[in-house]
């Protein structure tokens, strides 16, 4: 977390602004824009991420629940964001046969690494919740999610005492880029009663656009935490060695690891 670099512009612009680099170098930069590129200023601003996490953990108990809504609040369409149809061959093969051969691998700092099929997960006690999805961009959408409680699944693989984070490795190369999407949450969020490995949306199978066959629901966090197309959970004590080392695809691109605000 120490040397996080805040580097790249807005994530979800479908059309990345061309020539941003040129813009950065241009004389039109205001003072604050050059401050935004200063490493010490970045470190100082980054400290507020940890401050916000500490403060929010202080005022919210481990079990404080996200609001649940009624059937009538459900939006007509759950807006899909980021990847909506992964194009790599592996994923397409799984999608073509209805994810029958798909397995969720859970390993890392656990005593019993294991693989789960969708049917294995569906055989576990399920939870259904109507919750609000908040995108970092500012919009919200209400939908009904069904899935296995992540805490129950983790109990089966028995995390070791060293496990501090659950890392979600995904199938999608977001925006067709070279790296696969990933995200991480800590054990407090992982064992929260509303944190689900969701396989159902609005009483139906989870559609591909929303992350089939399995996605994370972490209802006290922003949308970018809720990894779609989840292939593997890795329990770790540090995410420094994974991809950019900041604990998530967007975190490696300048966003806060703590996505509770």
């Amino acid at each position: 977390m120490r040397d996080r670099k805040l580097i790249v512009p807005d994530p979800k612009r479908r059309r990345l602004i061309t020539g941003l680099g040129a813009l950065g170098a241009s004389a039109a930069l205001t003072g604050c824009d050059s401050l935004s590129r200063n490493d010490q200023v970045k470190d100082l601003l980054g400290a507020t991420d940890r401050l916000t996490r500490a403060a929010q953990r202080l005022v919210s108990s481990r079990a404080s629940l996200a609001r649940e809504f009624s059937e009538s609040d459900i939006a007509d369409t759950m807006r899909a964001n980021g990847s909506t149809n992964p194009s790599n061959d592996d994923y397409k093969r799984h999608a073509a046969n209805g994810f029958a051969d798909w397995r969720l691998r859970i390993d890392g700092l656990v005593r019993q690494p294991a693989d789960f099929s969708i049917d294995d997960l569906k055989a576990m006690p399920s939870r259904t919740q109507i919750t609000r999805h908040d995108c970092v961009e500012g919009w919200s959408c209400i939908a009904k999610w069904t899935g296995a409680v992540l805490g129950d699944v983790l109990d089966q693989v028995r995390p070791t005492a060293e496990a501090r984070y659950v890392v979600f490795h995904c199938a999608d190369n977001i925006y067709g880029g070279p790296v696969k999407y990933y995200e991480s949450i800590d054990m407090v969020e992982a064992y929260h009663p509303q944190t689900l490995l969701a396989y159902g949306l609005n009483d139906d199978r989870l559609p591909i656009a929303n992350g089939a066959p399995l996605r994370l629901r972490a209802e006290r966090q922003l949308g970018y935490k809720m990894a779609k197309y989840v292939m593997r959970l890795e329990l770790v004590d540090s995410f420094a060695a994974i991809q950019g080392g900041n604990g998530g695809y967007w975190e490696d691109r300048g966003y806060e690891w703590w996505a509770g605000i």
Partner: protein
Amino acid sequence: MDNANNNPHSTARRRGRLIKRHGLFTRVWHWINLVCLVVLLMSGLQIFNAHPALYWGNDSNFDDPALQITAMRGDDGEPMGVVRIAGYRINTTGVLGLSRDGNGELDQRGFPAWATLPGPQWLAMGRYWHFAAAWIFVPMLLAYLIYTLASRARRRLVWPTAAQWRGLPATIAHHARLKFDHKADYNGLQKLTYLLVLFGLLPLMVLTGLTMSPTMNAAWPWLLDVFGGRQSARTLHFIFSFALVAFFVIHLGLVLISGVLNNLRSMITGRYRISSDAPTAKDNRHA
């Protein structure tokens, strides 16, 4: 910080008396606040630009936003910036929806580059600036509100006297003619304004801001009930921020035309010159 009421300097006596108007905490708070609020506003507009539309209720009804800033092709086929609000479509090309970036290129964005922090579209950095400024602003606001409420004298600074409540219409008429008294005490209109901003708008900005946080929704679910849902809170946050901009513009205008040097000095050194015939704060109390 000696009391300047007894300033023996003869010219000062002729032109009025210097009094101590603002304590050190008030002056430091004022200027830090100014920086914080400018950063909060500009980074807030950057964050707004990531999804330049507002809604009412819990979630976003994408088909029918209460307000939307966007770009489209006009009847002549040229791109234009528009604001859609309450069924109206206002052409705002050049400022809202479509404006020139640092290179002079037309770019589709809600608020223009000169109004946002940072200038280019950069949501992650906007959020960092916003929360960093908020972490300075919120504790200072809390401290200042407690400081104001803690002593009778400071409570009286922002709470109008009975006579000031009764005289409010006259005070408004007086101000409308751009006539200003220079007294030790604030007039009723000033007190009411500061009261509304300090104990109304600023706390509401903080609370509507917190209502947008999913973790805060779990911690303090009453926030959602008070403001009618997350998207309502986001819309109110936007409206209150522009109410603060309006306050800032009027405040700045009045500071400029009611004796800019005297006003500035009172917020830098604390000393403020009142008319030689004006009562001191002490005399004014039961007026």
